[in-house]
């Protein structure tokens, strides 16, 4: 078990990567064996993630140096700086890993029935596993060039999965838009990495953070990295591609794509807090995040109320909710240079933002899955054509209500726990942030009520007389996420103390991240 924990970070990335290429071979022999393999592998990866999380909570930051005689030998003999690829997993990375492992497992289970009638399923699961590997790589790597590589893996597989259902014309358009946006964002990330590498001859985030000077090229690199990740996360006004792409993907993939947006958000936070840390002009960069957050919250929710396509409606809400996280973490970043303000409300604001990532990762994929369930049963995403479906889809209705109450921040559900942390802390920074947050929450509830009434309420419609509840695997996947919501709802303090505060502290404490790499000189 100790050896498994030691190598867990690389195994979490490598196992889905290798299985991705085995899947088509096994799929040619037996579909059932392929499906069982995908679920078994993702379950095992989730087990490894939780085992690694436990290890990190006991022993601190986990380091893994690829190709070294010992995994913790970060700087080879005769060198002054790390030259090998290093995986560094701290409180923030492992929180993202936990989220990714749960959502990918639920998405794979949901896919078993959701794409059962589609052709090319071998390729679907190959791409799904590649996306899983890319996501974990982005979350665990401490190497900037590796971050770019894993971003590319996740983006290319994501684009192919968006365009997977080739029988629909809009999927091709969505996939095309996603790959163009991703390619431009990735190229800008690569250009920024080039600017940093040209000056410091380093790619490791910890080692770079130790020597970075915040020169003019560093500032340009920061702008490129920040805006590239902002666009990939889907923040207003760089969100325009988001509903076009996310609404046409299979619902299981849309659930995963939301977490890749979180991963890009994580990368932006890692750049601001860990790479630049104390060197950057924290109030200015903090306000940039806050402005993007406020715009996303308000424009996202008002655009969502306007939608008639259930998946576009959900997509705009995802944008709106991402805004809460940026506002929370942005306030924490804005006061990063003032330890007194960090202690007073900065840490709570970051904790609220990070907690909202976890909560959003439970209810948003659940809501996308319910949207997928509606499409699965009715064959349309158009809410104007739906009605009375609660008579036929009782499980989906109940799960939709859980997701709706959670996203709207209705007590006692988990969405409220993170929103109250954000509201109370950002109010100290500027009251308008809290007021906007509350207005957006009210609009969120209003728009979800509208969609609920349109799709589920009313008498049974004649065109849906033959509709049945979705297959069991889709319900199981939704129940997994709903169980996550219920668990966080009941034990908010346990979750905050075990995962959220360590994650927030990992962002604030830049020196711990640096020392884990540079302090391990033999």
């Amino acid at each position, binding site marked *: 078990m100790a050896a498994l924990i030691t190598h867990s970070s690389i195994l979490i990335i490598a196992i889905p990567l290798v299985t991705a290429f085995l899947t088509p071979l096994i799929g040619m022999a037996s579909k059932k064996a392929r499906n069982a393999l995908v679920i078994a592998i993702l379950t095992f990866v989730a087990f490894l993630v939780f085992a690694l999380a436990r290890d990190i909570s006991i022993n601190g930051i986990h380091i893994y140096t690829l190709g070294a005689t010992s995994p913790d030998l970060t700087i080879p003999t005769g060198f002054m700086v790390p030259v090998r690829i290093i995986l560094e997993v701290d409180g923030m990375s492992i929180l993202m890993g936990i989220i990714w492992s749960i959502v990918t497992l639920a998405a794979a289970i949901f896919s078993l029935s959701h794409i059962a009638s589609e052709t090319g399923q071998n390729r679907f699961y190959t791409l799904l596993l590649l996306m899983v590997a890319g996501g974990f790589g982005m979350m665990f790597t401490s190497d900037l060039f590796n971050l770019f590589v894993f971003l590319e893996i996740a983006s290319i597989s994501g684009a192919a999965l968006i365009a997977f259902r080739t029988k629909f014309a809009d999927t091709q358009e969505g996939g095309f838009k996603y790959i163009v946006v991703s390619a431009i964002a990735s190229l800008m990330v690569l250009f920024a990495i080039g600017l940093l590498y040209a000056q410091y001859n380093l790619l490791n985030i910890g080692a770079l953070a130790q020597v970075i000077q915040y020169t003019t090229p560093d500032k340009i690199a920061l702008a490129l990295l920040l805006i590239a990740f902002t666009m990939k996360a889907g923040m207003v006004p*760089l969100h325009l*591609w988001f509903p076009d792409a996310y609404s046409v993907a299979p619902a299981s993939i849309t659930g995963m794509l939301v977490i890749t947006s979180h991963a890009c958000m994580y990368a932006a936070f890692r750049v601001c807090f860990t790479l630049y840390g104390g060197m950057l002009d924290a109030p200015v*960069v903090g306000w940039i995040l806050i402005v993007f957050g406020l715009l996303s919250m308000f424009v996202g929710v008002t655009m969502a109320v306007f939608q008639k396509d259930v998946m576009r409606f959900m997509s705009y809400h995802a944008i709106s909710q991402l805004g809460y996280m940026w506002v929370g973490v942005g306030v924490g970043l804005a006061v990063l240079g003032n330890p007194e303000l960090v202690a007073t*409300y900065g840490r709570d604001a970051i904790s609220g933002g990070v907690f909202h990532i976890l909560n959003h990762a439970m209810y948003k994929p659940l809501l996308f899955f319910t949207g997928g369930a509606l499409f699965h049963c009715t064959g349309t995403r158009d809410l104007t054509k739906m009605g009375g479906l609660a008579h036929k889809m009782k499980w989906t209705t109940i799960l939709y209500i859980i997701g709706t109450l959670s996203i709207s921040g209705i007590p*006692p559900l988990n969405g409220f726990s993170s929103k109250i942390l954000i509201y109370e802390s950002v109010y100290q920074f500027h009251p308008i942030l809290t007021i906007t947050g509350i207005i957006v929450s009210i609009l969120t509830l209003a728009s979800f009520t509208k969609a609920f009434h349109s799709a589920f309420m009313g008498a049974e419609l004649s065109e849906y007389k033959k509709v049945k509840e979705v297959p069991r695997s889709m319900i199981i996947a939704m129940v997994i996420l709903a169980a996550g919501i219920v668990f966080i709802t009941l034990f908010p*303090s346990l979750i905050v103390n075990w995962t959220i505060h360590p994650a927030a502290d990992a962002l604030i404490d830049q020196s711990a991240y640096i020392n884990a790499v540079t302090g391990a000189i033999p």
Partner: protein
Amino acid sequence: MTFILESGYAFWNPLIWIIVFIVVMVVVYFFRRRGQKKYKKDTAQARIFLCGEEVPEAEQRHIRVGNIYWGFFETLKEYYNQVLRPHTGIINDYVLWFVAATAISAIVLLIAGL
């Protein structure tokens, strides 16, 4: 206590809310149980009365998504006209927004550092 979340200024206990919710549900159920049970089903007593007008079939009475919040959209028509303008669906426009946002951020960071 694992149930109590300290927010730094106050605390949040989901159990209290759940208990209150259960109590309210019990009270509502109690009043519902005391409701009139002796009405005659499938007679005029149980039918919808709409000022003597003919009531449409149940299926036709369903209010669709396009008819909900009409007043909200009418009031905010100008806001929606403005906010819908960038949503062209054209990828070139999306990239232009990216270029503009990067340029503005870079200028802000450079000016702030002077």
